């Protein structure tokens, strides 16, 4: 009897031990012949398209250098969370993309390898990069921990056919014109009493896009999110005007149902489907091509009358190396490869983004692949500003974006928001930012 119990105990303990150990992962591969882990951001309308593009280009990298790359395309929704998990646990990729507005906040975590002079040399030198793009890569006067990979800006896309039907010949130059044209283009086309064509489409439930416009229109009004010392000041009059103007689009020239669109791609789809006549967005060209949509033209973003000519923030993707990596050299090789002139032309034309290295713009293949380049290059180099370069930017982005989304929701449900509503929302954000500081 005792023997039976003994046997059972041994079996039970072994089973438990086996179960416990099976939970332990093998840990990160390290050592000779190991592959690099690369986290990429979602650039195309679908993850699958991203994977195809990366497969092609990374195969070229493996051929050239013999280094294998295991890549993962991460959707935007939880990417920041994922990065912070890697930061707090020390277990992460070797190389990763980030949204460039996160640069300074992530720089402060100390988890990413600084690109000092040696590292910059290793990837081909820092002066190859477009100045505004490089500026957005980190705190001024500090060694950056990321370098630019893809750039992007907002620009205006409009339908010449709908413009012609409304008797308009030129795209709007000022924001006031944008609203006026929008009203003219918001009509009932099939006579059933319901408006089915709108001036514009906006992803009203996207926190990121909301924050972008809180920034861009704020800049046009001369309102910075932070003072020079990094103190938040998001409830200034300029910010109230900026946010109110953006939110008002929803009841005047965009469909109220836009308040439920969570991704830019959703608003772009409405533009393609004929629900709207204009859209201000970053790079819809891949989606246009996917649906064989050709009735579009690109133009500069309309700017508030009397305001500064800032049409976009320097959007884009930066790339960096995780400080806990065992493969520093190989990681730098990958960064060098992806920022090389050739790859920049190839990758950016496939993602409809803008190259971050000046030499790439001289390549005629680029403009062939993407006819919007001349307009957008001008916006990038002359009419864009980097997102605020402070550590609280990440939080400010989330809080302001959420406030914009909530106000848009309010406008959609009740028909409008007042200056007082916007003021109150921004005052709330201000006190949250002050409390968190």
């Amino acid at each position, binding site marked *: 009897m005792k023997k039976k119990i003994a046997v059972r*105990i041994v079996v039970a303990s072994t089973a438990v031990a086996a179960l416990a150990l099976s939970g332990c992962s093998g840990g990160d591969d390290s050592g000779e012949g190991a592959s690099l882990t690369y986290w990429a951001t979602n650039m195309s309308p679908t993850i699958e398209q991203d994977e195809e593009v990366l497969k092609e280009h990374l195969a070229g990298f493996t051929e050239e250098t013999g280094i294998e790359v295991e890549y993962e395309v991460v959707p935007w929704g939880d990417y920041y969370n994922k990065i*912070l998990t890697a930061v707090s646990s020390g277990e992460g990729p070797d190389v990763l993309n980030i949204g460039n507005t996160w640069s300074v906040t992530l720089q402060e975590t100390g988890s990413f390898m600084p690109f000092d002079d040696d590292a910059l040399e290793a990837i081909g030198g820092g002066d190859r990069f477009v100045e505004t793009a490089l500026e957005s890569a980190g705190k001024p006067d500090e060694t950056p921990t990321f370098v630019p990979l893809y750039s992007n800006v907002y620009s205006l896309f409009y339908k010449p056919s709908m413009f012609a039907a409304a008797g308009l010949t030129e795209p709007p130059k000022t924001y006031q014109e944008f609203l006026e044209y929008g009203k003219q283009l918001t009509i009932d086309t099939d006579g059933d009493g319901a408006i089915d064509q709108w001036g514009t489409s906006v992803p009203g439930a996207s926190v990121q896009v909301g924050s972008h416009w809180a920034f861009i229109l704020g800049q046009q009004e001369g309102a910075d999110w932070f003072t020079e010392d990094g103190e938040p000041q998001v409830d200034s009059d300029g910010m109230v005007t900026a946010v109110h103007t953006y939110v008002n689009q929803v009841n005047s020239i965009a469909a109220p149902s836009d*308040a439920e669109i969570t991704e830019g791609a959703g608003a772009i789809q409405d533009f393609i489907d004929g629900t709207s006549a204009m859209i201000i967005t970053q790079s819809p060209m891949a989606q246009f091509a996917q649906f064989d949509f050709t009735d579009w033209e690109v133009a500069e973003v309309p700017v508030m009358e009397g305001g500064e000519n800032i049409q976009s923030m320097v959007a884009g993707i930066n790339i960096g190396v995780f400080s806990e990596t065992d493969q520093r050299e190989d990681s730098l090789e990958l960064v060098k490869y992806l920022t090389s002139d050739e790859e920049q032309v190839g990758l950016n034309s496939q993602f409809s983004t803008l190259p971050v290295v000046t030499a790439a713009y001289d390549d005629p293949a680029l403009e062939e692949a993407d006819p919007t380049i001349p307009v957008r290059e001008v916006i990038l180099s002359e009419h864009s500003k980097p997102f605020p370069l402070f550590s609280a930017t990440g939080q400010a982005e989330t809080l302001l974006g959420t406030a914009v989304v909530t106000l848009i929701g309010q406008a959609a*449900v009740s028909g409008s928001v007042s200056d007082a509503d916007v003021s109150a929302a921004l005052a709330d954000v201000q006190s949250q930012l002050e*409390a968190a500081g």
Partner: protein
Amino acid sequence: MTRITDAPPDVAASHPPLHEKPRPSLLAGNRLAYLLIAPAVIAELLIHIVPMLLGLWVAFTHLTQINIRNWTRAPFVGLDNFIAGLDPDGPIGSQLYTSFFRTTVYVIIVLGACWALGIASAVFLSSKVKGRAFLRTFFLIPWAMPAFVGTIAWAFMFNQRDGMVNKILVDDLGVLDERPFWLIGENSFFVLIVASIWQMWPFAFLMLLAAMQSIPGDVFEAASLDGASLWRQFRSLILPMIRPTNIVLLLVMGLFLFNQFSIPYVLFGRNSPEPARLISPLIYEHSFVNWNFGLGSAVSALLLVVLFVASLFYIHLVMPRKNDDD
């Protein structure tokens, strides 16, 4: 422990006679029991208790995304996070109190509706009805379905432009003229309640059905012979006899609903609209949307204390004590 004098041989072997000193064998008596539950205790410590204590520790620090890399060295701020959470004039505190009140209302409504539906179906399906077996299985579907799948279907249905609800109400039936928003604005609370009741009521139904099975049938025969109406039978027979199950059911479901997170998260995303912001999503927002982990942990700890106290109070009030008549 009663001594069995005519014990079969193997029992006698594992229960040494009293006059012998018990051998300090590894397998003797309670030692074996402790050994066997040790893995479960260790797992419970590692997965539940230790993380909870860590979370409690985080509540006293200023842990944000900036210092999360060296989170063990995050600055100690004492009760600041708790004070921010409890201060009714501050932005965070006032949000917290509103959310707490709203969550209480949510729990009362959903729990009440789930219980009512559950007891009604349990009573109905306890009698010999045609299709009883089928209905029993059918009613369990919302509970058995993965929460995400069910809830996302509701999100699609309540979409303002393309959802089924608006299509039926506005286009087909013409009950409303304008297409209302369901997932933003005031109606979002209603949608949250509907989705929650749909998902949770089968649990109540199941527990109450099981409780009904334990009621002996002849009690009802006697009652109807005495001329008791159905309602009277319900009130005076069924309710008292399923009281123990009811007590446990209400407590378990109440706590679960108070901590409800997955339904609002799937319906509304990472930021719930204000009219539907329950307390768990609010805590999530503090920690994972605003990256203020210290504050999120502090509010979590406060919630734990409140629920714990409420549960103790409830148990003391309604649980039958050991010496009471059953």
